[in-house]
């Protein structure tokens, strides 16, 4: 089997803190509608059910019940569960623990099969807890018989490996959680 270093950059996704207020003390009395509209847009874009912001005596909660419903219903009810099915989409899967911590999620830049080691009998590229350098290979994603090495884009340490060896991954699927702060 031929192996080739894929010319693929790993994608980096740092999820911003949901509300990054430039003027945390800004009163709602001035420009409040705009601020709330921003929250609503945030709710929309993220397809949230409810958004609540409380800060220095100010609390804003936005709910949208129509969107909130898990619009799955009977269509999915009939779908047989498949072990091969990659069920997580990029935007939906950022683990909760990441939000406040600023971990870096390494996502799959392509669709394919996830391998933790260069060959079945070789050691894994990385284990949880390992320290990694920027540019270090983390795993391989095989697609169309090509082995694409996925590199870390940051120095840090591996907090969590999110996919099991030999499982298929879809575009944008989170593969690793890296803590860049732990590097120094």
């Amino acid at each position, binding site marked *: 089997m031929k192996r080739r270093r894929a010319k693929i950059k790993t994608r980096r996704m740092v999820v911003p803190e949901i509300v990054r207020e430039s003027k945390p003390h800004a009163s709602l009395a001035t420009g409040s509608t705009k601020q709330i509209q921003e929250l609503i847009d945030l709710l929309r874009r993220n397809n949230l059910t409810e958004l609540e912001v409380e800060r220095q005596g100010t609390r804003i909660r936005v709910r949208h019940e129509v969107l909130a419903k898990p619009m799955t219903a009977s269509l999915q009810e009939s779908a047989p569960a498949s072990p*091969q*099915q990659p069920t997580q*989409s990029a*935007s939906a899967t950022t683990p909760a623990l990441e939000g406040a911590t600023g971990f870096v999620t390494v996502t799959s830049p392509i669709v*394919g099969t996830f391998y933790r080691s260069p060959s079945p009998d070789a050691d894994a590229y990385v284990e949880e807890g390992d320290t990694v350098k920027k540019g270090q290979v983390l795993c391989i994603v095989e*697609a169309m018989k090509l082995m694409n090495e996925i590199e870390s884009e940051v120095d840090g340490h591996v907090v969590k490996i999110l996919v099991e060896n030999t499982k298929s991954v879809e*575009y*944008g699927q989170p593969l690793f959680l890296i803590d860049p702060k732990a590097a120094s």
Partner: protein
Amino acid sequence: MFKKVLIANRGEIALRVIRACKELGIATVAIHSEADALSLHVRAADEKVCVGPADSALSYRNIPNVLSAAEITGVDAIHPGYGFLSENAHFAEVCESIGIKFIGPSSENIALMGDKAKAREIVAKRGLPVTPGSPGELRSEEDALQAAMKIGFPVIIKATAGGGGRGMRVVNRAEDLGRAFQAAQAEAKSTFSNDGVYLERYFLEPRHIEVQIMADQHGRVIHLGERDCSIQRRHQKLVEETPSPVVDDKLRREIGRVAVEAVKAAHYSNIGTVEFLLDKDQKFYFMEVNTRIQVEHPITEMVTGIDLIKEQIRLAAGHPLSFRQQDVVFTGHSLECRINAEDPEKFTPSPGVITKYSPPGGFGVRVDSAMESGSTVVPYYDSMIAKLITHGRNRQESIARMKRALSEFVIEGIKTTIPLHRRILDDSDFQKGHVSTTFLERFLAS
């Protein structure tokens, strides 16, 4: 028959194919971009794979990712829908090479028909009527002038790799030809990465008549009658109907026979559409063959009772045609309105969240759409969000039914072309069937 099929498309046509697969007992895999993660076509499928970001070049048209998705899910066939990879001969070829059936004609068929000038040549050689024009690709301005002088002005310059109006130029006088030739070539090159152009006689008020054909892998070909798609805006169809108000049984048999012969000349298999121009003297001319399912295929289904997607899948699996020509019976009349997320007057796109979606129902009404209340119309793709199809015992009934259905259709939160369709259906020329491809232009100007 296939066990599992990947649908390399999105929106209503992806859902349409999933429905057909479900009825055939075939498992389905949806692919989607990040922008479509919550779309109905994704939830309707048995499995789903995200193949890239919103940009279709990096997702729906990303061949490595689409094929990887097919491999990791273990499908035995791919349905390309329309648009995206559906007429990409290279994609069909790669599918063939890795043993995944491309549900459509062979890559050779696609390549041949994709070269519009060559397709016309083959058909003309068989003695079938093609629009008078240059024998093949134009090599130079002089070439163009010579051809134009021979067939007479006005002429239209078209890209050989073209479609959707890109790379086209109408030329009324010899002195304008040079510049138009250059412009068409440049546009063809930038749009299709292929600067080949040819020219044809330009008809002033033609009808766009197309014939649905089905061909099995055993050389048998039948047609399923015509569709009249003369109501167009900038070469984009808006309203389609079958039967055409100007095609009688005799003309239908004749144009059907020519369509069948044209695809036989190309040793074509699977389903396809042969497009013709029909002039005011009821003379018709071959234009091109579309090697995929068409947006407007439902109206043919309504009058024939034949499920074109199911037939297409069966044919791709090697099954012989389930019908002989004499089994095809045309019942009543069917009309389709394409509902776009656009301002109905300015035609500016209107993406956004559909706060309320309530489709019409009842007898003779069909809705093909992947929208529902709460759906988001994303700005990255085609603006068509629903196809409203009616069927009636005759043209009058299907028009009355369409007007009724349009009046029931509730789509809130975005603008749609529903008001435009209501105006078109109220137009007396439309009601009399007096339309041509220039109808809408005049209608909108008035």
